[in-house]
């Protein structure tokens, strides 16, 4: 099967800055694909390369098997939800959503009917007459989504679409986006710097660092089996142990909930204890390495300053390859 999006050795350099540097990606049709990484890691540039706003310095980009190097954005069956939504301030919501259909030359009645249906899909029925400036951030986000989806794109690109929303709205939108994607079966390519968002929504995640992809995989894989230290660090929940502490060849990770306090061979000092509700987080220091352990209600809670021994099951220790 041809991939929806396929990058082969794609680079995008701005002068001496290698924004994207030799990236290979295969995104399957109907997949929810997340590009995760810190700012400046090249993930947004990759998205813009798919949309056609940027041209690759080297390499080949194919959409459904077709090389798109010389194809301007307006000839690609790809639509984007912009980070700032980019709604047209001079048009009302309905005309914003109908913009793509208007450009495609559809009749007024037809495009208004379809735009109204798209607004209904994003739970904003009857908002058509308003101006974008009269909407809240969450509503604008939905309008931007409707405006992209009404064109029935084969790939939908989302550039940090939830970044400007508050936490509660963001969580609700994550669910909605996921449901929407399943229902429509459109390939979603989603750029985010929020690992929680990437892991909870995507079928597969590509982790970016300095213009390169350092790991691609299912969320569980990224979370439990980071291949390099950067991924473990960025995804953030694991303890990272230097070779000296574990006796392994490379850096290793162990999840906080797998760390046992009291039974083991690694001496450490308790530096902080915080009650999180469902669990208690214990911060420890083992010979200069900071570790966290998550204790359930049943576990004994150590005192701050106490010297303890740490251990874990051998199966919970995940050794990473040396950094390339």
């Amino acid at each position, binding site marked *: 099967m041809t991939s929806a999006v396929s990058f082969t050795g794609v680079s995008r350099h701005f002068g001496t800055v290698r924004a994207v540097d030799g990236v290979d990606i295969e995104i399957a049709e109907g997949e929810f694909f997340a590009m995760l990484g810190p700012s400046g890691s090249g993930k947004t540039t990759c998205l813009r390369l798919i949309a056609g706003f940027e041209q690759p310095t080297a390499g080949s980009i194919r959409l459904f098997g077709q090389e798109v190097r010389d194809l301007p954005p307006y000839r690609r069956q790809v*639509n984007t939800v912009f980070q*700032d939504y980019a709604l047209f301030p001079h048009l009302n919501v309905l005309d914003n959503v109908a913009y793509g259909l208007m450009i495609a030359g559809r009749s007024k009645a037809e495009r208004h009917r379809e735009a109204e249906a798209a607004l209904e899909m994003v739970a904003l029925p009857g908002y058509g007459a308003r101006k974008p400036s009269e909407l809240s951030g969450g509503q604008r986000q939905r309008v931007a989504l409707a405006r992209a989806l009404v064109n029935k794109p084969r790939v939908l690109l989302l550039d940090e679409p939830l970044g400007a929303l508050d936490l509660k709205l963001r969580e609700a939108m994550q669910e909605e986006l996921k449901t929407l994607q399943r229902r429509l079966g459109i390939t979603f390519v989603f750029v985010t710097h929020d690992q929680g968002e990437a892991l909870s929504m995507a079928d597969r995640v590509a982790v970016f660092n300095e213009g390169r992809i350092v790991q691609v995989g299912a969320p569980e894989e990224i979370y439990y089996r980071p291949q390099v230290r950067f991924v473990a660090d960025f995804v953030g929940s694991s303890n990272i142990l230097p070779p000296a502490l574990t006796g392994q060849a490379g850096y290793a990770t162990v999840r906080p909930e797998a760390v046992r306090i009291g039974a083991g061979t690694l001496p450490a000092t308790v530096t902080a204890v915080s009650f999180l509700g469902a669990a208690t987080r214990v911060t420890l220091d083992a010979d200069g390495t900071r570790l966290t352990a998550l204790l359930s209600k049943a576990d004994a809670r150590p005192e701050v300053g106490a010297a303890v021994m740490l251990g874990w099951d051998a199966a919970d220790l995940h050794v990473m390859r040396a950094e390339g």
Partner: protein
Amino acid sequence: MSELATSGGVTGRVSDLFWRRPRVLLFLLLAPPVLWLGIVYLGSLFALLAQSFFSIDEFSGQINYELTLKTYAELFRQSNLDIIIRTVVMAALVTVASIIIAFPIAYYAARYARGRWKALFYLGVMLPLWSSYLVKVYSWKLILAKEGILSWLFQTLHLQWLLDGFLALPVVGGNSLSFSPTGTFLVFVYVWLPFMILPIQAALERVPVSMIEASGDLGAAPRQTLRHVLLPLALPGIIAGSIFTFSLTLGDYIIPQIVGTSARFIGLAVYQYQGTAGNIPLAAAFAVVPIVIMGLYLWWAKRQGAFDAL
């Protein structure tokens, strides 16, 4: 011991007063300009306009201080109507030409020029404003003259016939470019162009790049983006610029005297009636014409939604 900072003398107490009563500060800041605009400027304007409702006694040349519309009726005499139509057509053409020339420059400056290039743009646009307007107009008279550089250029390119043919045309032509309405038009466009470029550039500056990208993303080719996104969003700037070029052309009385035929424009009519002719009521009535035209223009622009995106 007090935890509060001590007050800083008189200036400190004044600052404290402004902080407690921000309206006092606002009043002090606004009063001088409001007085200036309200009394000195608008007051004298209204005093002039009031004159337009008086009339002049044709025999004695004395002003008759009875309210009447007689002076306005005089505006509709054929010779006066010609002046008004000539001026309005010229102002409209100058405005349209300015928009066409200014838009690409403003777009380039807003979208692409950064750092030094932007500084160069501002310098390039503003530099002509640094020298006297009279100097520029006289320079143009030389450029457009029969022995001027433009004429020389046409000759060198063996296109003299083209220039002669154009000058032979009725209405736009004349003895030479510097004695033709075309010459007047060219100089007007040149002199007012900065007033069109800057507001359009300011309007385009506020259009985020993502909006242009979004339009392309939704399938619009560049010319469609220009028509459906850029022009509507630049419209407030275009309207602002056209208010400048239109009203400046309507009111100018120097350029038509130096470059062009001796045909009169509104500004020149106002100047002559209130000066040499001493017919202040008719001068005032002429002065009302641009105000009415601008009022109608703004009303139309508002109805077209020019200010919706403000």
